[in-house]
């Protein structure tokens, strides 16, 4: 009898380990698989039972529910108040378009056998038979853009690295997922790490790199452990090493762990950090694709970008780009977070409305109070008001609406939020996390927080608002990277979309 109890850290944070232990104690013959999370995080711990007619889900299960599950004969899909029926028929999941997240929550993350049985390694096997030019063309043709936030076409980046000369090229995976409201990188690594390894291997073959490095944040201890185990498994099979799947290609991956610095998610600061230095941003040019890690040509892609490549190689660029709108092709992994009733991972084609995400999937606020604001794209993303709920979620539409998609995080706030406080926090966060290299970011952030504080206290409000907008302009135009350059985005969008919060009147 197979029972699935997620080993994802979000599930563990609400008692999945204790649920697994309780099940094992009541029936030691049950085979418990610690799968990734299906992404419906409000249903965690989501326990699934393998039955002849498919997987039956129960959730949210607490350790105290386990006895009653056994009493209801849940191992044979017995009726129970927590029963959700067949997992594949839960509408929240079945209405999604799982492409990058196709296997997450379904397979045992560390079973290579499971991985192969669910379409794993097809993309890599195909790539190994192709010239690097053809692989790069396929990725370019798919329209895949960088999922870390910048949205740069992946194929063009790869071509630059392929055409650059270097003794040791690198594939660097940016797993420094520091944006609040985002957790897709973490869930993918914890739930299907081989996909990332496969994507990196394909990238290595495409550009002629034999070394891969995953830079992963220290705040993700569970993901680090899973990824390290997966790499070890790939090394002891015939995958990673001097002969990738028996070919003459060599590729290996190393994990480097961050040390609690947000700015190290910026690609050049990340390179400095991997080199063991202070995570100080580099001036560009030279682009990392030409002169990156240790001065060598380097592909830097986000976890989700690299993890989408195996599917593109397996099913072809045409299949991928048939989804999405305009220049935002394929699917996006949206992350519903904050004050939301049904939070988690929603993978859908680009172009879905904010309304569908927040209300249809999210079910409104967790507190039950009216929804007032949503921050899209992490701490450097804009705050939108409920009046903008019909905004389409793709790169271009969000820019047109005065925001950005970023890494796809959607953080919901109810009507108790004070946007002046949120704007002040944006500046304070920048002050804490600034690498200190450029003046607008290092000093502007502190001055910005002070100025917003004066506005909140009602001191010379109009004058200070003007000053704040001027400061935002300096930071936007004068900062070296997105840290200082985009901190004005949440600040200004809060001022524009929630003007009454900045009138200096105490509420």
């Amino acid at each position, binding site marked *: 009898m197979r029972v699935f109890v997620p080993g994802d850290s*979000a599930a563990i*944070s609400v008692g999945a380990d204790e649920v697994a232990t309780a099940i094992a104690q009541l029936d030691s013959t049950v085979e418990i698989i610690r799968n990734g999370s299906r992404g419906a995080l409000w249903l965690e711990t989501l326990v699934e039972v393998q039955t002849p007619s498919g997987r039956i889900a129960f959730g949210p299960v607490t350790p105290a529910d386990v006895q009653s599950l056994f009493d209801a004969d849940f191992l044979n899909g017995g009726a129970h108040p927590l029963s959700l029926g067949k997992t594949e028929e839960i509408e929240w999941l079945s209405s999604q378009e799982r492409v990058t997240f196709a296997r997450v929550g379904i397979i045992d993350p560390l079973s290579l056998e499971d991985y192969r049985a669910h379409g794993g390694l097809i993309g890599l096997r195909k790539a190994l038979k192709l010239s690097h030019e053809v692989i790069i063309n396929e990725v370019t043709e798919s329209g895949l853009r960088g999922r870390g936030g910048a949205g740069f076409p992946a194929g063009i980046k790869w071509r630059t690295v392929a055409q650059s000369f270097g003794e040791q090229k690198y594939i660097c995976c940016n797993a420094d997922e520091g944006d609040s409201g985002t957790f897709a990188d973490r869930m993918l690594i914890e739930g299907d790490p081989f996909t990332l390894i496969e994507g990196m291997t394909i990238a290595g073959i495409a550009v002629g790199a034999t070394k891969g490095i995953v830079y992963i944040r220290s705040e993700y201890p569970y993901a680090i452990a899973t990824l390290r185990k997966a790499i070890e498994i790939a090394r002891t099979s015939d995958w990673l090493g001097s002969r990738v799947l028996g070919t003459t290609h060599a590729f290996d991956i190393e994990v*480097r762990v961050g*040390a609690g610095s947000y700015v190290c998610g910026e690609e050049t600061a990340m390179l400095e950090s991997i080199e063991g230095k202070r995570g100080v941003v580099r001036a560009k040019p030279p682009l990392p694709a030409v002169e990156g890690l*240790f001065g060598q040509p380097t592909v830097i892609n986000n976890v989700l970008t690299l993890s989408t490549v195996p599917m593109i190689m397996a099913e072809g660029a045409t299949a991928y780009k048939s989804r999405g709108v305009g220049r935002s092709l394929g699917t996006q992994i949206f992350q519903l977070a904050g004050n939301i009733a049904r939070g988690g991972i929603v993978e859908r084609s680009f172009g879905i409305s904010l309304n569908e995400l927040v209300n249809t999937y999210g079910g409104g606020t967790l507190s039950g109070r009216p929804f007032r604001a949503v921050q899209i794209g992490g701490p450097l993303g804009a705050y939108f008001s409920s009046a903008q709920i019909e905004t389409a979620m793709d790169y271009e539409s969000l820019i047109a609406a005065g925001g950005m998609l970023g890494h796809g995080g959607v*953080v919901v706030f109810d009507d108790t939020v004070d946007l002046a406080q949120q704007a002040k*926090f944006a500046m304070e966060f920048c002050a804490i996390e600034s690498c200190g290299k450029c003046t607008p970011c290092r000093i502007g952030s502190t001055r910005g927080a002070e100025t917003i504080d004066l506005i909140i206290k009602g001191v010379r409000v109009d004058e200070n608002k003007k000053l704040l907008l001027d400061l935002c302009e300096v930071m936007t135009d004068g900062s070296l990277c997105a840290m200082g350059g985009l901190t004005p985005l949440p600040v200004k969008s809060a001022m524009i979309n929630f003007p009454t919060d900045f009138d200096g009147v105490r509420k």
Partner: protein
Amino acid sequence: MKFSPWSQDAALTLLATLRDENGPVLMALQLMQEEFGYVDQACVALIANYFNKSRAEVHGVLTFYHDLRTTPPTSHQISICAAEACQAVGARNLEREIKAKFNDEVQSAYCFGNCALGPAVMVDGKLIGRATVEKIEKALQ
């Protein structure tokens, strides 16, 4: 969490495992903290000598990263996520409550990637979702 008492010999043995690494300084500092619970002041010169770097370089790295600490931990380690998604579900109030209630070291962190089940708190490396004072109390036992 159990840490070894500071020992220069043990430190040197650990540093030897990084001999062939490219760009080893941050890894070396992290390794020291993993073993001893903090980075002893003696590590700066030790690492500088071992990897042929200046002490200024090592000091620079040590003081840049929020994770690295130069004093031994004296209590349980509580980290509360102070970022937006957790703010949206009351992290600011929870932080005040925790600081008032527990004598342990409480730090602000920025995101554990548990943003749909906030507030998120980490107690001695264990992640707690939908955190409350009661849940933290239980984790500390």
